[in-house]
């Protein structure tokens, strides 16, 4: 990271400057050759289906017969004439607003704890806390969760909470990233602060959090995007219905129901595109705000 450069700038620079810009003629070709497999996959499995889905979103398509062009009808219906769609948006927003901060706070707290354990079984606890995330999208885990929170899951007021808890419990990925970020913070900053008499909270607020803010930002963006796309847990926990009484009708779940059980694939495609644009917008807004609270170390 940038910080490493500041601590020992000399060797880094010398390597960069010492190496002459040597570019064999065919280096680009080789690069593309190595990129090839990924590129093929990205075009064939991601870009092409996306283009098709964009087209389908302007059609009435029932999976079996050829799509009929309907223009903006699907989009108009989404916003004007589908109360359940709006319900699913509300449920998803609730989930994002609850689960992302909860997960990040848990991840940060555990990372701080583990960071203070330098050498004393840190590796073991890191793995232990990471384990639930490895099982992340697993169906088995969601089923176990369903069994544990049996009555909660079947009551509208609590069903969403159980899914938020399930997601928060899988804080391993952001935790590991936080931990790596924490270990990058130069110790002399803390030492200097300690000499000045700063307590634990002071150091957390004035050193750790600002120095960690790029990592925090990264985790926030990633987890927000993931949360909008949450599907497996809700699908399994609610038996694929978004119930009880639509209390766990996630956006993706409703999309799936429209596409695969009601055979309205055109409508489902329109939903998918609205979600994509919404996520892009929200990410853009997060990036905008980042200039006010993310500290990249090299700023004065």
């Amino acid at each position: 990271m940038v910080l490493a450069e500041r601590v020992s700038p000399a060797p880094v620079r010398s390597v960069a400057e010492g190496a002459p810009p040597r570019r064999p003629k065919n280096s680009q070709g080789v690069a593309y050759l190595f990129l090839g497999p990924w590129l093929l996959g990205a075009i064939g499995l991601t870009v092409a289906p996306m283009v098709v889905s964009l087209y389908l979103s302007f059609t009435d398509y029932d999976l079996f017969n050829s799509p009929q062009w309907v223009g903006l009808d699907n989009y108009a219906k989404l916003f004007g004439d589908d109360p359940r769609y709006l319900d699913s948006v509300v449920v998803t927003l609730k989930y994002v607003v609850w689960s992302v901060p909860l997960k990040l706070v848990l991840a940060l707290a555990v990372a701080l704890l583990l960071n203070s354990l330098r050498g004393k079984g840190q590796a073991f606890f890191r793995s232990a806390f990471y384990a639930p995330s490895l099982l992340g999208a697993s169906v088995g885990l969601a089923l176990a969760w369903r069994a544990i929170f049996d009555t909660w899951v079947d009551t509208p007021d609590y069903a969403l909470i159980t899914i938020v808890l399930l997601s928060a419990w899988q804080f391993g990925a952001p935790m590991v990233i936080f931990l790596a970020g924490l270990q990058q913070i130069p110790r002399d900053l803390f030492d200097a602060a300690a000499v000045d008499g700063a307590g634990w909270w002071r150091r957390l607020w004035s050193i750790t959090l600002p120095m960690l803010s790029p990592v925090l930002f990264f985790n926030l963006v990633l987890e927000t995007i993931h949360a909008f796309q949450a599907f497996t847990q809700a699908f399994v926990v609610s038996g694929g219905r978004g119930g009880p009484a639509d209390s766990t009708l996630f956006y993706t779940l409703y999309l799936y129901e429209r596409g695969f059980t009601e055979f309205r694939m055109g409508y489902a495609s329109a939903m998918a595109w609205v979600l994509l644009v919404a996520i892009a917008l929200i990410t853009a807004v997060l990036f905008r705000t980042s200039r006010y609270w993310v500290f990249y170390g090299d700023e004065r």
Partner: protein
Amino acid sequence: MKAHKVVGLLLCTVLAAAGCGGGSASNGQAEIRFIWWGNDDRAKVTNEAVKLFESRNSNIKVATSFQNFQNYFEKLSTEIAGGNAPDVIQMDYRYLNEYAGRNVLLDLTPYVGKEIRTTDWNAGFIGSGKLNGKQVAMPLAQNATAIVYDPKLFEAAGAEAPAIGWSWADYKERSAKIQASTGGKIAGATDFGGTEDVFETWLRQRGKKLYADDGELGYAKDDLKAFWQLSKDFRDGNATTPPELVTTLNAGAEQTPMGKKLSASEHTYDSLYGGYNTVRPNELKLGPYPSDSKETLGSYRKPSQLISASARTKNKDAAVKLIDFLLNDPDAGKILGANRGLPANLKIREAVAQNLSGANKVIFEYQKSVDAKLGDAPAAPPKGDGTIYKLMQRKHEEVVFGKKTIDQALDEFWRDAEEALK
């Protein structure tokens, strides 16, 4: 080196020959795919029957696979959309129109009575696979709605067991009695208000039906209101399961209030009795629905499953042959037994009835006891019924959990149901 080359050449020749052999498959050889939903039990008998079919038709190979019901139709729709439709497809009554209405099922009309034998069939029952004059499916077996109950709990509470002639008021009274006798721990009846199958049975007892001939809703708002009110009366009278158990009805028997021993009686289909019997062996019985009508129970001879061929199959003859074999071959009938319900072929049904035990016996005896009061199946539900089925559950849930009043839920149900039928 030379020896290697020779061996290599030889191998190539052998492979080429084998390739040639494979290529000649078009000469009378056919490979078809058959899929169904069910569990391991069903897979065992079905695969056994398919093997017998292959041994009798050495030129036909059948690849089989199965899913549970929940995933089955999602898989089927994606396979068909992907141009990879199975040749022979187990079909559900509720989905018949969704698929046939989209022209993905082969019209079997030219084969009925010829390649597909129907001499030992009930003519009315064959009709349950017809849509707009086309035979798009053949019923595989017959089932009917029923009440599964725990006779010990009825007895302990001094409540009479379900029998023809009992009314909905009797049901409520006995359920409340049972619930009181267990100190409220076990409900007298599983809440039925969100289940379209129960509503349909109840409607038929009043001479109405779910769908009119033109495919519109066949009942009025007030009918559904009265039905939801009936379910509410059960709740108010401490005769039925608490709200959080209402949502468990979609899963297998082990997940339902009955399977969890939290209810003394539950609405079901007789063909599902096997599942209950696995969870609670030899504890439960089947009885008729309560009815306020002397003439009818509202239940009817429903095709528990149907069987169709894909309209795009390249091996029509082989597919039709397999369908006929599964429906009409006495040996296949013996292997399949009553696994899918009462066999559609009456001769096979009789043969199977001679040799019954366990769950199959209970199912056969139940159907025999109510047969005189069963009606013929109505026309298959229209496209959109799958959506309405779930809609009814959802709106009823909202009522049960106190999120909406019956009238609010009713208005929303009506709006969305009409939308689904468009």
